[in-house]
C-alpha cells in the first residue's frame, strides 16, 4: 500500500460508495477477490478495474466461494468473494454454509437492489441477509454509504478473530452509487463480541492435574489447532508427555503422519488405532475439536471410561455433545502453550504421567491394524494405490484438496501429511464440488506450491467449469479424478446396507464425459491412466506441466470400498477394518 493511500484514510475524502467499498477492501489488506459482476454490484466493479486488488473472474459464484475458502485455508488469511444480488448471492449459499461448518475465515461481498426497492420483489432481489443468517458468523446489510468502511473493517475482524467464520456484507446498489466520504476507522467496538483467547489459569492447573493422574490419555486434535496455528505447540505437548495423538479430518497435517505417536484419524472411517485410542482412553484432551457425530459414533457408547478436557475458542462447543470435566475456553495455541509450560514445571519437580502400558497397547493396535487395501484380482487399478503414489511423488510440501466421497477418505488416509494447511477439504458440510474451485483458490494464495485436487468423477462434474478460470487466469492446478464411474460413497452404502441395489449411483463416467477431451476443451492438459504400471509415469507427466491445469483421469476399480468403517449411528466399538472383520483387542495389555 502506498503512503498516499494510507494518508487518504484520515482526510475523509469525497468518493462514491463503490469507491469507498474498494478502498475499504484495499485497506483491509485484500489482495485477491474471486467473483462475478452483475447489475447490483456493477458500480463496485468500476473502481475495482483500477485497483491493485486482483479480481479473478470465475464461472460460477459457488466457485468463487469455495475458491475464497481454499485461499483462506492455504494462506491462513481471509478469503474474499464477490457476487451480484439475487442469483449471484444465492449461489454463494453453499460455500458460506461450508465455511461456517469448517470455521473458515471469509468475507463475501454482495450487491443488493437499491434501498428504495428492498422488499418489493424487485428484479434480482433476494433477502440474502435473511437467507444466510444461520450459515454465517455474522452478516450486514448496508444501505447508508457512510457505513461502508466501518462495516468492512468489522467484517474482516469478525471473520478472522475468535472462532473464524464467514461474514457476508450485502451492499445496496443505491449506497454504492451515492456520494460519501471515505475514512478508514482506527478502531471498532462490538459490544456483544469479545472472544476469550487467554485460557483461565485455574482450568490449566486442573487439566494438568488430570493429565498427570490419567493412565490412558489421548490428544484429540481438531481443526481449531490448524486455524490457531498451534502445530508447533502441539508437537511440544505431545513429545513432552508422550501422549498418543489422533487428528480429525479437519486437523490432518496439524501433527506429522510420520510421527510415531500419531494414531491417525478417528471416526466413521478412522484408523483402528485412532478409534480404539479414543474409545479405550481414560482421558480425552480435546484441542479445537467438537465431538462431531462422525467422530463419536453413537454418543452414549463413545469413550465410556474417559474424562474430558475440552479446549475450544467457542464456549458453545464445550459440553454441547459430550459432558466435560475440565472446560477451557481459549485459543488453542495459547491453551497448548500454557499446558506445555505447566507440564514442564511439573516435570522439573519430578512429576510425570505414567502412560507406558497404554502407549504400548495403542502402538500394538497400530501395528496390528495398519491401513490397507486389497489389490483388485483382475489387475485393474486400486484407487488407494493411486493416492499412495501421488503422496510419494508429489510429497508433503504439496497441497491436497479433496472433494467428498470415497476419494476424500482415501486421500486423507493414503496421502501422508506432514504440514498444516496442506490438506483442504469440506469436512462439516460435505460439499461435493468443493475440490476444483478450492484448489484454484489455494493455488492463487500459494502460487509456489503444487496444488492437487483429488476429486471424484461425481464431484468433478459439479464444478469443473472453473478449469476455464484456471487456464485463462494462469492458475495451474492439478486434478486427479478418481474415476470409479459411480457416486462411490453412496454406492458403498448400497453395497453394505441396501443389498447391492444400486439405485441411481451409476454415473457411467468412463464413457461420458471424456475427461481428457474435457480438459483439452478447457485448455488444460488431459491425461488418462488405467493400469497400475502407468501410475508413476502419469503422475510425473502431470508434475511436469506447470503453465496450464492438468486433469488426470485415473480409471479405477469400481468396487473398492473405504475401510475401516463404523456404520452410521452405531458404536465405535463396532468398527470393522474390512468387510465383516472386527479387530480384537488384547485388553490384558491395558
Amino acid at each position, binding site marked *: *500500500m502506498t503512503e498516499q*493511500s*494510507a494518508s487518504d*484514510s484520515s482526510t475523509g475524502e469525497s468518493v462514491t460508495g463503490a469507491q469507498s467499498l474498494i478502498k475499504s477492501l*484495499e*485497506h*483491509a*489488506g485484500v489482495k485477491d477477490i474471486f467473483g462475478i459482476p452483475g447489475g447490483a454490484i456493477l458500480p463496485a466493479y468500476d473502481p475495482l478495474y483500477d485497483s491493485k486488488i486482483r479480481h479473478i473472474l470465475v464461472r460460477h459464484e459457488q466457485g468463487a466461494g469455495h475458491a475464497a475458502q481454499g485461499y483462506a485455508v492455504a494462506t491462513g488469511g481471509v478469503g474474499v468473494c464477490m457476487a451480484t444480488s439475487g442469483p449471484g448471492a444465492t449461489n454463494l449459499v453453499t460455500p458460506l454454509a461450508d465455511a461456517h461448518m469448517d470455521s473458515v475465515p471469509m468475507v463475501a461481498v454482495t450487491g443488493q437492489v437499491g434501498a428504495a426497492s428492498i422488499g418489493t420483489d424487485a428484479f434480482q432481489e433476494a433477502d440474502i*441477509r*435473511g437467507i444466510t*443468517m*444461520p450459515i454465517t*458468523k*455474522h452478516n450486514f*446489510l448496508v444501505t447508508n454509504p457512510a457505513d461502508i468502511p466501518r462495516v468492512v*473493517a468489522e467484517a474482516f*475482524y*469478525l471473520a478472522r478473530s475468535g472462532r473464524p467464520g464467514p461474514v457476508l456484507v450485502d451492499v445496496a446498489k443505491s449506497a454504492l452509487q451515492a456520494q460519501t466520504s471515505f475514512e*478508514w*476507522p*482506527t*478502531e*471498532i*467496538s*462490538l*459490544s*456483544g*463480541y*469479545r472472544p476469550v483467547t487467554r485460557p483461565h489459569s485455574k482450568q490449566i492447573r486442573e487439566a494438568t492435574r488430570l493429565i498427570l493422574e490419567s493412565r490412558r490419555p489421548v490428544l484429540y486434535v481438531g481443526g481449531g489447532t490448524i486455524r490457531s496455528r498451534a502445530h508447533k505447540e502441539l508437537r511440544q505437548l505431545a513429545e513432552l508427555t508422550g501422549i498418543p495423538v489422533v487428528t480429525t479430518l479437519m486437523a490432518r497435517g496439524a501433527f506429522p503422519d510420520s510421527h510415531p505417536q500419531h494414531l491417525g484419524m478417528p471416526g466413521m472411517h478412522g484408523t483402528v488405532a485412532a478409534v480404539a485410542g479414543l474409545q479405550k482412553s481414560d482421558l480425552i484432551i480435546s484441542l479445537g475439536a467438537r465431538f462431531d457425530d462422525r467422530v463419536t459414533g453413537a454418543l452414549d457408547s463413545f469413550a465410556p471410561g474417559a474424562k474430558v478436557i475440552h479446549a475450544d475458542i*467457542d*464456549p*458453545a462447543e464445550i*459440553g*454441547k455433545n459430550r459432558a466435560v470435566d475440565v472446560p477451557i475456553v481459549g485459543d488453542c495455541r495459547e491453551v497448548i502453550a500454557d499446558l506445555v509450560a505447566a507440564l514442564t514445571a511439573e516435570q522439573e519437580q519430578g512429576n510425570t504421567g505414567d502412560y507406558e502400558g497404554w502407549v504400548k497397547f495403542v502402538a500394538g493396535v497400530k501395528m496390528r491394524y495398519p491401513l490397507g487395501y486389497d489389490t483388485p484380482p483382475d489387475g485393474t487399478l486400486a484407487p488407494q494405490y493411486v493416492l499412495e503414489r501421488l503422496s510419494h511423488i508429489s510429497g508433503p510440501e504439496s497441497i491436497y484438496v479433496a472433494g467428498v466421497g470415497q476419494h476424500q477418505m482415501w486421500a486423507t488416509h493414503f496421502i501422508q501429511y506432514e504440514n498444516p494447511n496442506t490438506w483442504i477439504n469440506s469436512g462439516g458440510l460435505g460439499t461435493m464440488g468443493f475440490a476444483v474451485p478450492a484448489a484454484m483458490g489455494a493455488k492463487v494464495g500459494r502460487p509456489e506450491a503444487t496444488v492437487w485436487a483429488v476429486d471424484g468423477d461425481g464431484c468433478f462434474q459439479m464444478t469443473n467449469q472453473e478449469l476455464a478460470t484456471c487456464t485463462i487466469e494462469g492458475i495451474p492446478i492439478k486434478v486427479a479424478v478418481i474415476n470409479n464411474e459411480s457416486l462411490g460413497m453412496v454406492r458403498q452404502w448400497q453395497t453394505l446396507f441396501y443389498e447391492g441395489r444400486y439405485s441411481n449411483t451409476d454415473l457411467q463416467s468412463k464413457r461420458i464425459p471424456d475427461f481428457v477431451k474435457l480438459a483439452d476443451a478447457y485448455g488444460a492438459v488431459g491425461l488418462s491412466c488405467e493400469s497400475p504400471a502407468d501410475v508413476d509415469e502419469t503422475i510425473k507427466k502431470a508434475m511436469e506441466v506447470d503453465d496450464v491445469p492438468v486433469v488426470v483421469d485415473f480409471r479405477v476399480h469400481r468396487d473398492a470400498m473405504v475401510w475401516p468403517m463404523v456404520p452410521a449411528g452405531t458404536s465405535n466399538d463396532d468398527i470393522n477394518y474390512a468387510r465383516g472383520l472386527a479387530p480384537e483387542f488384547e485388553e490384558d495389555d491395558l
Partner: protein
Amino acid sequence: MTVHTLSVLVENRPGVLARIAGLFSRRGFNIDSLAVGPTEDSSVSRMTIVVNVEETPLEQVTKQLNKLVEVIKIVELDDRDSIEKELMMVKVKADVNNRGQVVDAIALFRGKVVDVAPDTITVQLTGNADKLRDFVAVMEPFGIRELVQSGMVAIGRGSRSITERAKPLAVPVEQPA
C-alpha cells in the same frame, strides 16, 4: 422440562429479532413467550424470552445466543427474585342483564375496564401467567369474544441493574502499511 426466563440485552438494530427467532427454531428450542421493547438506552433493546427446556439445553440456548454478535448480555431471572408481568386484554360478552356480574368478577382480579359496548366489555389485566389463566377461566362462562396477550416482561428485585454494562471494548483496526 422447566420454564426459564431470560433477559437478553441486544443492540437496537434491524434484523436482530429475526436472528434470535431463527436461532431458536433452527436449534430446536421452544419459545413460550417473547417480548421486545426499548430500554433506558436508545441503542439497546431488551427481550424477555421464556423458554421451556432442561438444564443442559438451557446452557446451549444461552451460549448460542451469546454467539450472536448483536447480543450484548443475557441474564436468567429467577422467578423468586424478580417481578414478572404479562398484559392481557379480553373482550367479554356482557349485556344489561349480566354486566354487573362481569364487572364484579373483573374487580376481584383488579382488572380494568377499558372499553364498553352494548354487548361486550373489554378488560385489561396485568399479572403473572397464573393470575391471567385464572381470570380467563372465570370469564369463559360469560363468553370470550376476543383475547390478546403480551409476552412476559420481567425485572429483578432490589437496586441492582442488569443494564449497567462495561463500556464496549474498542479494538484497534489494522492500518495499511
